[in-house]
């Protein structure tokens, strides 16, 4: 399967949800998250043809570098490092166990970069539940697993509303950040959801 459909879906969902992401960030941050993610998404979409001709890990690396050099803010280094680390760790045609392992490495890399840990209202709180599900999918596989991963990511993002913000600009608010979904987690869930849906269509 060519990955351009996948990349298009994963980036287009950010463009489509820019208003929602902006509103989430205005509630507990400074309101730039939606626009930053859109800028990164469009930068990646502009390279779609070039990405399509690359093997998966080279495409991921190239997308990560595009994030780092165009987004800025926290999202540039964070989403960029995530993609670059996945690129290092993923085999050409990864299965659930490969993805779980690569996500584990990525979570460690993001912890080093942002000094944040799981449970601190960041996108790690979406990545980690997804990693755990992929590591122990039980009987689930194929379309069923994709649907479960999608649901897991959305629920995990929603659950960040009940967490205290310890990192990033929301941390300046203390308790006032309670009740609000973390914008980066919502973006992460949108991306994972779009990837899952795109893979289900092509299965």
């Amino acid at each position, binding site marked *: 399967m060519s990955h351009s459909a996948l990349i298009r879906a994963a980036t287009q969902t950010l463009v489509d949800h820019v208003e929602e992401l902006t509103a989430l960030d*205005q509630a507990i941050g*400074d309101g730039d998250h939606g626009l930053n993610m859109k800028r990164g998404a469009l930068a990646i979409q502009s390279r779609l043809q070039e990405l399509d001709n690359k093997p998966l890990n080279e495409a991921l690396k190239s997308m990560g570098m595009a994030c780092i050099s165009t987004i*800025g803010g926290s999202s540039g280094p964070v989403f960029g490092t995530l993609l670059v680390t996945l690129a290092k760790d993923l085999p050409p045609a990864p299965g659930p166990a490969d993805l779980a392992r690569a996500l584990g490495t990525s979570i460690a890399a993001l912890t080093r*970069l942002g000094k944040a840990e799981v449970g601190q209202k960041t996108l790690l709180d979406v990545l980690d539940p997804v990693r755990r599900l992929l590591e122990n999918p039980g009987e689930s596989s194929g379309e069923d697993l994709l649907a479960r991963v999608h649901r897991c990511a959305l629920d995990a993002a929603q659950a960040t509303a009940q967490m205290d913000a310890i990192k990033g600009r929301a941390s300046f608010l203390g308790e006032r950040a309670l009740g609000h979904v973390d914008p980066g987690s919502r973006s992460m869930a949108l991306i994972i959801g779009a990837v899952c849906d795109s893979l289900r269509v092509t299965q």
Partner: protein
Amino acid sequence: MKKLINHVDDVLAESLDGFAAAHGDIVSLGSERLFVQRRAVRRGKVALISGGGSGHEPLHAGFVGHGMLDAACPGHVFTSPTPNQMVAAAESVETGAGVLFIVKNYSGDLMNFQMAADLFDRDNATVIVNDDVAVENSTYTTGRRGVAGTLIVEKMVGAAAERGDKLAALKTLGETVNRATASMGVALTACTVPAAGRPTFQLGEDEMEMGVGIHGEPGRRRVKLTGADDIAAELTGAILKELAPGRGQEVILLVNGFGGTPVLELYLMVHAARKVLADSGVKAVRYLTGSYVTSLDMTGCSITLTAVDPGMLALWDAPVHTPALRWGI
């Protein structure tokens, strides 16, 4: 939204082009508008580079020039610049004595500057500014924000770099000035990010946001609007509590407008802050009043105090010639 713009996507580029044209005697614009740099870089001097999201003008590009910064990297509005901007700036202004990065304490700025420092293979060090006492610090949080005190760090370290101080000494000085500096702000109305098109938060006609950040991030609490004396007492009180100056301590008083506040009111706040200082036996020996570290069109102000010794005062008084700050030349 009512703003003097053409298209929201072009706001930063068109403003930077105007800035570079208006101050062409002092600064020039790097390729692809990645950075603003001094027109005349002095060889053998440690290069000072700062940067951050746009929307705080004149910070940082307005402080590029003799006696302050060598280069500044403008990010999108309220968004940290990217590592390649800092690397390009460093490569352009470094002349053998190394680079000191001056960074405001935000997660995004820290990560992007850290990546730049890792990529830049010549001697470099970083000073992190976190002067905002509105935010309670703890081991686990990102900590305090860097706000208007950044100007004072950039001025004093810039003066020391100009007289020939070395990289390690400049880093130590920057940290010393940061520790001696504390700020707190209040917003009366919110700011509107051009690309978002609506105000970042809503304040009632009779409300103010105490402890607001320079991105319109909410602060300590939302309270009923009071008189200037009460506001100055709360802001200055929180700062004095942090700095704990002895009686007779000399300070620099910076009353900084957030972008939408008349100078008339800023000077009124200077007067109000002076009364608080007098009650505490603290002596303001230098003043800076105006909109220097702004938050787009937000109304309100911040108060910054820096406790100075004669050495720091001399650095503050040293000649400076930048688009936004000029004296002694």
